[in-house]
């Protein structure tokens, strides 16, 4: 089967669920763990990463006929770095508060190996439309993971959800903040990096349990390909 025969639906389900970057492939863990102390932070970085994936996949796919194997990696890096810098400038100009909160993690999207991974594994072998869909699906999967982890940590850490929504959506969104647990004393562990690791572990376990139940078989761990995880 040629790669380009894969249906768009399959690309979507692979990127968003079967090969979820955060929960299955375990790539890009550094930003995933670092910024997910609130839902909004996670959502913002997730959206920025999704946009990067779509644009870099598109560019790589358009240029794939020209890219000789020996220069493809530097070319990918150039393309991804340009795309990320454009997104960084736009966020700096239009979402200034969020830009300040996410800080270094916006430029660090460049180093998310999920992006170069999709460029190499998918976009360099497929035509533009499937490549953009693949970028969208992978980004969506990553974004959902970030939002879920952000929700778990924000809820346990400070008892709210969607705090700081005004940074992403404008001043009217201040009222979106939900105080789920009033008078929450603050649970520091959830806000610090160890809480991020534990939250991620719980999410991965939940996903595995779900998959095991769906397959209607005894609960077994889904084998995880960790070969590249240390690069994340």
């Amino acid at each position, binding site marked *: 089967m040629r790669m380009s025969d894969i249906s768009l639906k399959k690309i979507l389900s692979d990127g968003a669920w079967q090969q979820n970057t955060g929960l299955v492939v375990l790539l890009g863990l550094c930003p995933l763990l670092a910024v997910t102390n609130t839902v909004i932070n996670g959502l913002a970085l997730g959206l920025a990463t999704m946009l990067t994936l779509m644009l870099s996949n598109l560019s790589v796919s358009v240029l794939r006929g020209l*890219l*000789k194997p020996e220069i493809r990696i530097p070319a990918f890096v150039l393309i991804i770095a340009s795309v990320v810098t*454009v997104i960084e400038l736009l966020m700096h*100009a239009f979402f200034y508060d969020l830009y300040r909160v996410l800080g270094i993690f916006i430029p660090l999207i460049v180093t998310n190996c999920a992006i170069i991974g999709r460029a190499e594994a998918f976009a360099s072998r497929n035509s533009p439309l499937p490549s953009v869909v693949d970028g969208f699906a992978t980004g969506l999967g990553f974004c959902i993971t970030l939002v879920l982890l952000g929700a778990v940590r924000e809820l346990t850490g400070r008892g709210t959800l969607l705090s700081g929504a005004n940074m992403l959506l404008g001043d009217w969104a201040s009222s979106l903040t939900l105080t789920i647990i009033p008078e929450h004393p603050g649970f*520091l562990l959830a806000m610090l990096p160890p809480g991020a690791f534990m939250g991620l572990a719980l999410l991965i376990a939940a996903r595995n349990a779900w998959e095991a139940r769906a397959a209607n078989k005894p609960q077994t761990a889904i084998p995880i390909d960790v070969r590249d995880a240390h690069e994340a």
Partner: protein
Amino acid sequence: MNQATHPVIRSGLLLGIIALLGTALLAGVNNLTYERIVEQEKRRMLQQLNEIVPIVSYNNDLLEDVIKIEAPDFFRHPAPVTVYRARLDEQPVSVMMIVTAPDGYNGDIRLLVGINAAGTILGVRVISHRETPGLGDPIEAEKSDWIFGFEHKSLKNPESSGWAVKRDGGEFDQFTGATISPRAVVRAVHTTLLYFQANKQALFEPLPTGVDEDE
């Protein structure tokens, strides 16, 4: 491109073209966003300054009336101190100084210290820090009221020995489990007051005006 071209040169050229395209794209976007980014930075800065100096108390362009002073030995930090000067009809009202406390628990704590012409503190805010969340970060105005305790203080209130945290025999509270962060802030604010007292004249010195840029 003809067949005779060496593949290395071909690849190099291709990479060069991609780099060129990327650079052109970045230059374009930078051009489009540059002014807005500068504007955003200014808006943010002015917002912070106006939290401390009431907007009605001055009528000069705060962000333009700014000097940088170099006094690394006095402030125990190599970073230059930025000073915004507020004036009402040319008369000095207050200064807003951005100083760096070098001895936070995790390094530098950058502070905005507002002092009025009489030498009384209008307010202090933490601009950036890396203190431990939950322990040292009550120095932030968003996290606790501690930083507001500096308002209306001066070199006479308290006297010099009172400018320390309580554990060191001074007047300012420390936090449960964190003495170092508040100690660093108290020390930096005190230093700033001392500098202000010694250099008040120079701090309010108007910027040279009437410089003819055409010459």
